[in-house]
């Protein structure tokens, strides 16, 4: 009779597999993929290995069914012998909860110890340090609560597992205890809220230090790139208007505004250490998110709305390389708001350097304004002494350091850079 049942079970197992053919084939495709190489694929081996894994899963189902049958037979024999229930499932599950608790707590410890070491290095900005402090307080507090509540949950499950001769304790409420565990979390959260609120305010409401005025840099996001605009010698990023965007003026800079004339383009974001930076964040097409994890800086860039984030980098790239013991360490701008199919590629390198290095670097950066743009904006075109070589760095250095207070923005011409498209 049990053999007949076994056969029934097999058909049941087969049915179960059919139900989830979808899920299982996905699981199996991995091996299938490695087995078969790319190019015009011979699907024969792929199907074969897929079938192999389906059968393997069927076998597993069969095994489980047999174990289930065996358990049932065992329980039935116990029952016919008039003994107590075959398996005390309350005990089994209670013990499993304790095992889960022990293994789980070790797992959490392992995660904190191993993966916890792989997370971001210390914050490389002033406000980031405050965020990291908050982070640590919150981490400690939540970890304590996490461990205590789970100890209670799983140990209660074990100690108060059902037993025939016991009766539960009728305990519908205790107002004092309930008040305590309403007020204690409320106080803890009030502290966190206050800390968070003050930190938040200190990040977004900055009082300007007249001796250390922030450097303004404009960031424009578009699918799937970041464009950086430095303000030039006047320190002011000029106006722009999306309606002025053309193939050669990809940001729509309004060169009718004098402040725009000396604005510079850059391939990377280079920042002087210890100097506040005021980021002007804009977007051309969809919403992106300007995210510099190492500086604890993130703000969305929204088309039609300019937003600002001010922060002060405190650790240069070189120092960070030493601190992280990673010679290839790089600060990055990444996009963290879904923005299209190449969202996962959108990035720009960032370098934090000393003020001297910065001065040297910024002098070499090329102005946005080219002769083509001059024509477009009816500005005097400047003769071109050097042919448009991509590395005419020394010439443009000389040009850019001059203050652009006249209508002719630079006394010598700059190279024609094809604006990065």
């Amino acid at each position: 009779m049990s053999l007949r049942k076994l056969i029934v079970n097999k058909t049941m197992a087969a049915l179960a597999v059919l139900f989830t053919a979808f899920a299982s084939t996905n699981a199996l495709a991995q091996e299938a993929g490695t087995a078969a190489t790319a190019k015009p694929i011979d699907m024969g081996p792929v199907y074969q290995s897929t079938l192999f894994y389906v059968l393997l899963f069927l076998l597993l189902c069969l095994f489980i069914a047999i174990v289930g049958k065996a358990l049932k037979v065992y329980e039935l024999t116990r029952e016919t012998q008039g003994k107590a229930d075959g398996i005390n499932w309350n005990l089994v599950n209670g013990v499993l909860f304790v095992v889960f608790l022990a293994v789980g707590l070790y797992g959490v410890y392992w995660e904190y110890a191993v993966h916890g070491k792989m997370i971001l290095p210390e914050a490389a900005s002033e406000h980031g340090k405050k965020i990291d402090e908050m982070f640590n307080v919150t981490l400690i507090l939540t970890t304590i609560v996490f461990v205590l509540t789970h100890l209670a949950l799983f140990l209660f499950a074990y100690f108060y597992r059902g037993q025939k001769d016991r009766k539960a304790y009728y305990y519908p409420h205790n107002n004092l205890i309930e008040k305590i565990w309403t007020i204690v979390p409320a106080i803890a959260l009030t502290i966190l809220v206050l800390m968070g609120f003050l930190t938040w305010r200190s990040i977004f409401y900055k009082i300007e230090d007249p001796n250390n005025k922030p450097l303004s840099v404009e960031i424009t996001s578009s699918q799937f790139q970041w464009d950086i605009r430095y303000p030039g010698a006047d320190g002011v990023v000029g106006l722009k208007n999306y309606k002025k965007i053309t193939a050669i003026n990809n940001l729509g800079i309004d060169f009718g505004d004098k402040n725009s004339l000396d604005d510079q383009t850059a391939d990377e974001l280079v920042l002087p250490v210890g100097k506040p930076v005021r980021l002007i964040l804009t977007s051309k097409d969809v919403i992106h998110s300007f995210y510099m994890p190492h500086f604890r800086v993130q703000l969305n860039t929204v088309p039609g709305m300019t937003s600002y984030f001010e922060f002060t980098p405190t650790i240069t790239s070189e120092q960070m390389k030493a601190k992280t013991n990673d010679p290839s360490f790089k600060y990055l701008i990444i996009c963290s708001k879904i923005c299209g199919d190449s969202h996962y590629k959108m990035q720009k390198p960032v370098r934090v350097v000393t003020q001297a290095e910065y001065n040297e670097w910024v002098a070499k950066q090329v102005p946005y304004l080219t002769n083509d743009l001059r024509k477009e904006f009816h500005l005097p075109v400047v003769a071109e002494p050097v042919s448009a070589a991509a590395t005419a760095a020394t010439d443009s250095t000389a040009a850019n350091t001059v203050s652009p207070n006249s209508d002719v923005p630079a006394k010598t011409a700059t190279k024609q850079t094809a604006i990065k498209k």
Partner: protein
Amino acid sequence: MSTISIQDTHHHGTHDDHGHGHHHETFLTKYVFSQDHKMIAKQFLITGIIMAVIAMGLSILFRLQLAWPNESFPILQTFLGKWAEGGRIRPDFYLALVTIHGTIMVFFVLTAGLSGTFSNLLIPLQVGARDMASPFLNMLSYWFFFTACVVMMSSFFIQTGPASAGWTVYPPLSAIAKAIPGSGLGMTLWLVSMVLFVASSLMGGINYVTTILNMRTKGMDLWKMPLTIWAFFLTAILGILSFPVLVAGVVLLIFDRSFGTSFYLSDIVMGTQILPNEGGSPILWQHLFWFLGHPEVYIVIMPAMGISSEIISVNSRKPIFGYHAMIYSLIGITVLSFIVWGHHMFVTGMNPLLGGVFMITTLIIAVPSAVKTFNWLATLWRGNIRFTPAMLFAIGMVSFFISGGLTGIWLGNAALDINLHDTYFVVAHFHLVMGSAAIFGMLAGVYHWFPKMFGRLMDKKLGYLHFWVTFTCAYLVFFPLHFLGLDGVPRRYYAFTEFEFMQKWVTVNVLVTWSAIIAALAQVAFLFNFFYSIFKGKVSPQNPWEANTLEWTAPIERLHGNWPGEIPTVYRWPYDYSKPGADEDFIPQTVPFSQTMSSNLPHDFEGNTIAEQVQREWDIANKPADKADLD
């Protein structure tokens, strides 16, 4: 199959005499266009399960991509065609997968599948009503939901593919067809589906609220309702007040996409093509979306909380600890959930002052959540716990709710959110607290009320297998993801190949993907158990869990009208388990105090002086006997 040894209950067979078949039901009116709340509940449940399996399959697909970004899986091309050319999922299809996975799970599984199933099943049965207030509206609610599912799935069969702007469909990405292929027809279908879904949800919600307010049986005052009903009631109110806002948002988005308005669009240039839209704001969509979106996560979790409360109490054989506190915390969550939506928008560039305000409201909402958790723990304390599969899942729900809830304290803190926003930390957080916890609440409910739905029991051992594998794997999947987030890895990345610092997480992704695959396979145990037990499961006794609530007094056989003859009267709250002095460790709500003189407590009479007098006299008369019993 089943080895559950339940003591047969005493009520069995007392209802054999009810009239069968006094309505003539055709196949169509019984199984398809049914107006019986129990059948509608089953329809919601099975549709929900199917959608859950689909969404789970989608998640396995994108987990494959994340774990083995450089491998090719030729078998995928067989199934997906051009979406996986050469056996590799395309980036835009990857985004479509995460979008549809999120949409299905949040709306179709955890809103309709959860509320739709259990509100429909339990509200009339637990408050003592013959059916919903408006059975016809109820039927419409299901069929709108079904249509919404069909429309959503149909987007897999169109040229440009399903919506792929993330489940939050932020414009302009979702508004401009050129921005991503999924924002073509696929997005239109998404929006249409959503309008249908909200209509369904509203029809359901109105029904739930009216039924609970107007159709309770005699004696069932609000403070005698089980916590499940309280949870469904408040969930329905949340839905009614917040879902229409989503429709408003969706309609404006449809206008922007199809009729050239500029509600959400302004100053946009695609490449060098300057769009004519002016004056709109993409942030408006986020406000409208999250005005629903945040209550939505409570719409998802509150029924799970109610279900778990009930199951934990029944199986601990103890009254739920702090019944009133549980209700007040639910009310607190309901009210507060309307004023916290801005915490999804801390870094949108919205005025920082608002960020501060939303941080305060957000962290306040943690207080009622903490109270609920402590009350569950106190309910387990000194209980006599029966580990039915339902109980295991309810305990799992509490565990996930703690783990995921605590990280909410991080994300609700605007200062910390700056660096955690849109990273894997968020993914880990909400998959634990609203994904896993709510799914576990739902599964607990399925195991617990399966006998009520189908008159049979699900297999216990397969339930244990299902629970332990799923519970372990869910933690293995979501716990490590926190650390990716702490390393600044953004979510919705097609591959980690473009950044050097992400390379170290690929091995973690392999672990996560394997855990997800095993968890998915474990659901086979559930699916098999579920569908097999519908037809072949062990026949259930009338009150298999020895529970107090009203639904277990109804006959096992499906009966339009729920109770033959008169609807039972309710005398007491639903949590009189293991009351000292009582013969049994449970006293159903329908048992009057006059039958339980030995176990009555002064508090039970709620200030009814006559009853107290009677009890006092009885106590005096019986005290010696009582003493003797105790000795």
